[in-house]
């Protein structure tokens, strides 16, 4: 309904403040009396703290206080936790090592905080942090997960012998083994999914304010889920009682998962504010971000696919070792298990799957969910294997996929997920047409005539979004429910405020959420204000991650709007002396269908608040809330096709074209959806070609700045060809599936499949730098 309703390309309401420099990010915040914090961080990857001397630092100019881990512990601040309990296959619970917000005995990765300095200026705080004298007794270091599992490896946590957090499995091992025994062909691959650093452009920041007059705390933080931060900081970390703690996540400059977690710094800033009596602001610099923001991926996997003589997949067997870093981050256990192995069926009808995952401690930054979270790792395993199998069998990768597509829904996979809807032929066909796959061989020949190597690679991904049905995730170990809440407040003049537990950090919620109102009542989006990110304004919410704000967050708004609509109709029916069932609301008017009797929307709203003429027994006011708990995951899926040209002299890869054909269910704002895909593709292509995270033998992160870690730049990327097909999700009222992560999930295997096609060598790891490509090419020439 209307030009600003569902499906309309509405320009973003939030843009004006960003393009004029009036965004309000945490580091932009200033409160009276505010002081600045710097953290003292371990330069060692693994060490005992022998002594900590703060006296020189305390005597430096501007220093207000230097606080350490013993004081933190003494004040009863609790250790950081992982909120998702995953058990090993023998039934034993995961082995969670203690993670204090400030280390007082042992440090386990470079960058771990051991003390905080509060001073008048940021420069003074940083100067004084360098004057804190810490004596360390160095311990042996291990950074690779497979090495950490070996006999004699350095041991990180007494709670986790052998550095093993859990040894988990999913699927039917006996059925899988039986299928392999019958196989006509088995395709095997070793896969390394490279460790990535999320790198939202806004570094994390926290401003803690303790108000002794009210015994009340306020925390401004760069969070994707401020309510979860408030709950965890009060219930588990004992920083402040929940009713005395306000958490505000204002404009947040990107998250990509890394701002889901509650980090030591916001806990310590709040605590330090009470301890020192001043508001305390900390802003990460970029190297601190590399050393402390949760990293992503870092899997080593052995995969085997069993096929029959007719090229049908019989079974999949997967062994993965997941590096979780030095401590278990908030959702770190779920990422390599329930968000990973449950997607190993891909878009294919695979009768038997068995996956085993070992999660391991190492002396590296903690690893947790990063854009896609487990699903990119699963897609990489499945789609690299599909392409490899097709090559081994000598059939076209598209035909091989078609042969094995799931075409009947709902479809129960052998790994928990029940796909509700989809049309994988539609996205494959759309992708192949957009990429002109039919004309590829001619283009390959043309390139060859210029001495260049062309390759084409495909990836047909599926993911599980709309995270998630609370009962289901509860049974799988989640410590929280994953519903969402919304409140719709209609003002007496008819304008509307939507309060949502979702959080926008680039996704454009202020626009798309307002489009639901435009659709429902025919009101302009300018009459709608979307409010989020403040626990004093929005009662509760689970936040934004897992592409859930559409399918879950907007469903909650939809439910609340149902209630508002129903009450408005009751009021109108009463005033117009009509039957409630005959009332329709459109174009900002409330009408009796088939007559000329009508009220303006604002008249109904004003009537609700004057209360002069309401039905008997009706409460005045027009404000409704709803909690929406999804009934299933949603399953976005698509086909990505990458065409590359490799220069055999230099190993340089040029992306000639990248096609994304996605099925996201209902699209609310195509402009925003395309933008989400573009950004995801850039991160996925970055993983495939550029982004390598490297630790040296002593556990130093040698790629801890933009001088060393290759962020994708404009020059590295092509214009993208993106399109959508649509099968509605039957699980939520809007039919939405989610679009935030698809680009990062689907693209890495398409790129690597394309390069390996071009060079004729399937042995290539990400990031496929020119050096690696050149070596792989020359290994087979």
């Amino acid at each position, binding site marked *: 309904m209307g030009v600003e309703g569902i499906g309309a390309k509405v320009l973003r309401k939030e843009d004006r403040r960003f393009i004029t420099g009036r965004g*309000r990010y945490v580091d932009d915040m200033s409160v009276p009396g505010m002081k600045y914090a710097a953290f003292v961080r371990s330069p060692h990857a693994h060490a005992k703290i022998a002594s900590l001397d703060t006296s020189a630092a305390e005597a430096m100019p501007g220093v207000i206080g230097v606080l350490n881990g013993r004081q933190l512990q003494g004040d009863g601040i609790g250790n950081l936790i992982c909120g998702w309990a995953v058990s090993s296959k023998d039934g034993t619970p995961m082995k969670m090592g203690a993670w204090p917000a400030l280390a007082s005995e042992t440090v386990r990765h470079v960058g771990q905080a051991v003390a905080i300095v509060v001073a008048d200026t940021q*420069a003074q705080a940083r100067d004084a942090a360098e004057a804190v004298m810490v004596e360390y007794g160095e311990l042996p270091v291990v950074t690779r997960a497979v090495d950490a599992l070996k006999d004699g490896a350095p041991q990180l946590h007494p709670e986790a012998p052998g550095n093993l957090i859990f040894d988990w499995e999913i699927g039917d091992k006996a059925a899988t083994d039986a299928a392999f025994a019958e196989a006509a062909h088995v395709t095997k691959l070793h896969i390394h999914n490279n460790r990535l650093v999320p790198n939202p452009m806004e570094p994390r920041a926290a401003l803690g304010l303790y108000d002794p007059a009210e015994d009340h705390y306020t925390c401004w933080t760069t969070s994707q889920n401020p309510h979860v931060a408030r709950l965890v900081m009060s219930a588990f970390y004992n920083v402040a009682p929940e009713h005395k703690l306000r958490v505000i996540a204002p404009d947040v400059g990107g998250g990509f998962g890394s701002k889901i977690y509650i980090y030591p710094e916001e806990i310590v800033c709040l605590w330090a504010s009470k301890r020192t009596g001043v508001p305390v602001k900390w802003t990460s610099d970029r190297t601190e971000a590399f050393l402390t923001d949760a990293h992503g991926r870092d899997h080593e996997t052995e995969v085997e696919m069993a096929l029959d003589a007719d090229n049908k997949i019989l079974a999949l067997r997967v062994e993965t070792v997941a590096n979780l870093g030095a401590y278990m981050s908030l959702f770190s256990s779920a990422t390599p298990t329930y968000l990973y192995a449950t997607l190993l069926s891909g878009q294919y009808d695979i009768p038997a799957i068995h996956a085993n995952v070992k999660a391991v401690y190492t002396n590296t930054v903690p690893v947790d969910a990063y854009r896609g979270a487990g699903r990119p790792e699963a897609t990489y395993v499945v789609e690299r294997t599909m392409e490899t199998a097709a090559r081994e069998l000598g059939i076209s990768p598209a035909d091989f996929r078609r042969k094995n597509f799931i075409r009947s829904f709902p479809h129960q996979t052998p790994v928990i997920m029940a796909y509700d809807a989809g049309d994988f032929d539609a996205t494959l066909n759309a992708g192949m047409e957009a990429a002109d796959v039919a004309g590829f061989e001619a283009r390959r020949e043309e390139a060859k005539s210029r001495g260049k190597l062309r390759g084409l690679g495909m990836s047909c991904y599926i993911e599980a979004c709309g995270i998630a049905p609370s009962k289901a995730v509860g049974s799988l170990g989640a410590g929280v429910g994953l519903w969402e809440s919304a409140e719709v407040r209609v003002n007496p003049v008819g304008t509307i405020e939507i309060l949502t537990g979702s959080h926008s950090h680039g996704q454009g919620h202020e626009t798309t959420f307002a489009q639901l109102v435009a659709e429902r009542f025919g009101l302009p989006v300018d009459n709608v204000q979307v409010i989020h990110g403040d626990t004093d304004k929005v009662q509760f919410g689970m936040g934004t991650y897992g592409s859930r704000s559409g399918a879950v967050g907007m469903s909650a708004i939809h439910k609340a709007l149902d209630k508002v609509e129903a009450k408005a109709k009751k009021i109108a029916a009463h005033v117009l002396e009509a039957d409630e069932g005959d009332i329709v609301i459109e174009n900002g008017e409330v009408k009796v269908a088939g007559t000329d009797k009508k009220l303006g929307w604002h008249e109904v709203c004003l009537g609700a608040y004057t209360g002069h003429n309401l039905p008997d027994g009706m409460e005045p006011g027009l404000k409704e809330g709803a909690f929406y708990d999804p009934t299933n995951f949603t399953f976005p899926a698509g086909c990505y096709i990458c065409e590359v040209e490799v220069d055999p002299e230099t190993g340089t890869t040029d992306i000639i074209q990248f096609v994304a054909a996605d099925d996201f269910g209902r699209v609310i704002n195509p402009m925003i959806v395309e933008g989400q895909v573009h950004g995801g593709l*850039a991160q996925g292509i970055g993983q495939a070609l550029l982004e390598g995270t490297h630790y040296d033998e002593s556990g130093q992160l040698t790629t801890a700045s933009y001088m060393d870690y290759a962020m994708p*730049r404009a020059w590295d990327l092509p*214009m993208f060809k993106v399109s959508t097909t649509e099968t509605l999700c039957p699980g939520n009222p809007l039919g939405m599936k989610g679009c935030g992560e698809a680009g990062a999930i689907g693209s890495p295997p398409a790129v690597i499949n394309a390069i390996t096609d071009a060079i004729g060598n399937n042995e290539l790891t990400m990031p496929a730098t020119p050096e690696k490509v050149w070596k792989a090419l020359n290994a087979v020439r």
Partner: protein
Amino acid sequence: MTDVTITVNGREMKGAVEDRTLLVQFLRENLGLTGTHVGCDTSQCGACVVHVDGRAVKSCTMLAVQASGSSVTTIEGLANGQELHPVQAAFREHHGLQCGYCTPGMIMTAVDMIERHGSSLDEETVREELDGNICRCTGYHNIVKAILSAAGASQAPAMAAE
């Protein structure tokens, strides 16, 4: 402490700063102009780009004392009152921003780029010129479109989505 006088967005601003104070710190901390952002410590990301005497400069790479006597334009000074600068309008029209953090630097870089190249800008040049600006949200697709559109460039991107 050293006294500096910098004309910022047309107004003469004075301040006393430590010699090590960066221009971006002076703008953000002393003047409260928080539209200019800091995204890295190595002059790589370009979130801090402003114009100094008409040229695009990374304000994290210049000391405030070096800028004394200069004329600085920040993102806050680009629009003419309520009327957006054409580059600001193009970023909105083409969805050239998501989280908004890199946006001020992108826009200031784009204005400078367009002033130097005019309508002869093409996709390749835009991508090359954006070498010093990192965006993690948009994949640059719509930023490139926005800049070409604002430049009035005749050559549309070769493989635009629409």
